């Protein structure tokens, strides 16, 4: 997909892009020929029927899976062969479809663990734990921004499902990523949290790129500037929500006939 | 005479065959270990002790009850399997909800205790067990003299391995077992009596080890130490094969037996560690093992 010169001027710059992405599992091709551009300061939704390959695309982009072919570029650097932890350090951070917190650490510690690396406080085995106290301020800010201040000293395992997902987002934000990949951040969340998280995501995307998989179409409609629809591993349609949701093929393959 | 790397082809053939025989034991043992691990998530450190028990039960049956090899071939695994079932019911069962390392430690202790007991009662230099009359003697294959009994070991171990594989991979019972491994509660919710299944599994694994023990009795000295010498190698076999598949355990068992056999010709000093070296290489190239699934 060629991006014309005029478009690049008008739009914010591309921070993450994939070309010709393909992944085979045995004889089965889960993702084929996917070109994707994620822009700075925007929320980009990846939607599609179950099994379309969305999570696989995520895994490929974050290098948890190695693509069979194709290339990935992060902020101008080719990361096709880079290991996942490197990719994370370069500013591309993901969340998981199943919630991922450190269950037996306190809520505060969950965030602090994420803050340790960017603050160069992760390999010092000779310093006391209190060395980490200078991260508290930032950690508390982050917790406050997602409304978890009250639960600061709870053990993460004791949080409800929705709260865990919120915590996960706070942890992710602690890394101050340039690109954020969220796999179904609202799944299983009560409505009250959906609103909160939508607001957070919109807020976050002011100065970074967010790519998210989401089935909750009202969320997609509300906060995503850009939508890519995947079907059977291939891109079916692209554009803003209004365009995509009018597409007949998308309606048949994904949205169904009912009103949303 | 044809030579390969300075070794006569005939000798090489002989060594290959012998490797296959050893592989039979590895296969039988790693199979049992893989089943118990696969289904119960217990690393059965007592596997070597159960192998030893198989041989000892055969010896005791012969000495005190006059029961010979053939009935022992069935009886000993059944007895050891039953003992395994009792152990599972009384003890192992309590460890399923814990980290698998506790199962490992428990069976490790059990192995020590069982081995110690037999050493206490029967000494460490071992007991004699004669080859059954029907399988005594040997056949001259031209390139080597093959004791008939060894041929029998290869055949019967192949049959038992394949039979077990079929049972687990191709039957409904096997499907229950595999499912129960992953989520016992759910399988139970579906209406399957999982606790009984697990007991049977452990008994089956222990029985397989004992079966290998009976097979080994006429070849090796029946000694309390025979199991502990074997178990670490079998662990390595299992790591190389990867715990994901039953077939993997079987094939790896045979292949490594042969690899070890060949090393005994080309570089005998290394024959004890060749399996560990292979293990290291496999880990570098395929961390999940040759047949294992990625964790």
């Amino acid at each position, binding site marked *: 997909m060629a991006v014309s010169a005029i478009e690049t001027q008008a739009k914010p710059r591309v921070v993450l892009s994939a070309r010709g992405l393909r992944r085979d599992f*045995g004889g089965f091709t889960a993702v084929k020929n996917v070109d994707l551009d994620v822009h700075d300061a925007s929320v980009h939704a990846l939607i599609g029927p*179950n099994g379309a390959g969305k999570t696989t695309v995520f895994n490929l982009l974050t290098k948890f899976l190695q693509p069979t072919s194709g290339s990935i570029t992060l902020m101008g650097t080719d990361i096709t062969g880079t290991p996942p932890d490197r990719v994370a350090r370069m500013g591309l951070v993901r969340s998981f479809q199943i919630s991922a917190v450190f269950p037996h650490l306190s809520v505060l510690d969950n965030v602090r663990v994420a803050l340790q690396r960017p603050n160069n406080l992760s390999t010092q085995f000779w310093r006391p734990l209190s060395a980490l106290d200078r991260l508290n301020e930032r950690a508390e800010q982050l917790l406050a921004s997602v409304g978890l201040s009250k639960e600061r000293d709870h053990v993460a395992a004791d949080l409800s499902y929705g*709260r865990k997902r919120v915590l996960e987002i706070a942890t992710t934000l602690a890394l101050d990523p340039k690109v954020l990949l969220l796999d*179904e951040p609202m799944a*299983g969340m009560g*409505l009250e949290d959906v609103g909160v998280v939508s607001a957070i995501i919109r807020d976050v995307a002011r100065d970074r790129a967010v790519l998210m998989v989401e089935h909750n179409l009202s969320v997609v409609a509300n906060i995503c500037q850009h939508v890519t629809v995947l079907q059977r591993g291939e891109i079916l349609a692209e554009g803003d929500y209004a365009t995509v949701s009018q597409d007949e093929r998308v309606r048949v393959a994904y949205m169904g006939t009912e009103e949303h | 005479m044809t030579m390969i790397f300075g070794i006569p082809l005939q000798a090489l053939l002989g060594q290959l065959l012998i490797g296959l025989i050893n592989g039979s034991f590895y296969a039988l043992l790693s199979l049992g270990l893989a089943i118990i691990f696969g289904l119960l998530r217990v690393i059965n450190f007592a596997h070597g002790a159960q192998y030893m028990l198989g041989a000892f039960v055969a010896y005791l049956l012969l000495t005190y009850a006059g029961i010979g090899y053939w009935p022992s071939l069935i009886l000993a695994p059944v007895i050891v399997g039953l003992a395994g079932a009792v152990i599972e019911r009384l003890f192992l069962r309590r460890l399923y909800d814990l980290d698998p390392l506790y199962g490992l430690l428990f069976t490790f202790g059990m192995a020590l205790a069982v081995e110690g007991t037999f050493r206490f009662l029967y000494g460490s230099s071992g007991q004699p067990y004669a080859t059954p009359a029907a399988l005594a003697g040997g056949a001259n294959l031209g390139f080597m003299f093959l004791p008939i009994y060894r041929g029998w070991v290869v055949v019967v171990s192949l049959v038992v391995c394949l039979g077990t594989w079929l049972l687990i991979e191709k039957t409904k019972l096997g499907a229950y077992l*595999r499912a129960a491994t992953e989520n016992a509660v759910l399988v*139970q*919710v579906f*209406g399957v009596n999982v606790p009984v299944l697990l007991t049977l599994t452990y008994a089956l694994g222990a029985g397989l080890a004992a079966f290998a023990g009976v097979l080994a009795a006429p070849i090796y000295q029946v000694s309390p130490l025979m199991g502990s010498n074997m178990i670490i190698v079998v662990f390595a076999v299992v790591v190389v094969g990867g715990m994901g598949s039953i077939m993997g355990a079987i094939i790896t068992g045979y292949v490594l037996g042969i690899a070890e056999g060949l090393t005994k010709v080309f570089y005998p000093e290394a024959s004890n560690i060749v399996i560990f070296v292979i293990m290291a290489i496999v880990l570098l190239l395929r961390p999940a093992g040759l047949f294992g699934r990625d964790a």
Partner: protein
Amino acid sequence: MAALLEIQDLNAWYGESHVLHGVDMRVGEGETITILGRNGVGKTTTLRTITGIVRARKGRISFAGSDMMQVPLHKTAHRGIGFVPEERGIFSTLTVSENLLLPPVVAKGGMTLDEIYELFPNLYERRGSPGTKLSGGEQQMLAIARILRTGVRLLILDEPTEGLAPVIVQRIGEVLQTLKGRGMTILLVEQNFRFASRIADRFYLMDHGQMVSEFPVGELPQRMDTLHKVLGV
């Protein structure tokens, strides 16, 4: 309508934490019931206690007239209760078709394999691959599909539409309607209010480990206020 499932003063615990505080509930033969409630109020726990997975429980559960409190876990299915758990519980070491065939058939009247594949063509396509290599949505379908074979009388579903694409949600809605039509009793926990309102006959609203209200689908419009308060709909 005769009560197929009747629950009185049900209490349940996880270790020392008391989660259900006296749940009362009644599910009639052939009825479809949906339990609504916010995250963490004990919906899943209610279902797990009914099926017997949570064993630290007190109170009364009777199913088809007989007491279920003493029935061992592996016998509940044979009494006619089928369960689709929230986390789906697909077995990765089993292929899709093995997963499908795993639960023993407990009574006549279940769907045939062909019917199931017709309902879920995805599954047919991928029947030979390992269960957990399916996508999230495919797994959910598989989890429902495999219970349909067994011929249970009561189908218990925990958030069957979580993480599913709208088309699939629609299809599952249709499937549940079909089952309803065949006289199956369904007990459902759902966050997707729109979905639930389309298939349920009656609702229970849950809060703090208790049922706080109960109403038929017809009263929905009058109840919107309460729901709004409790659920934030």
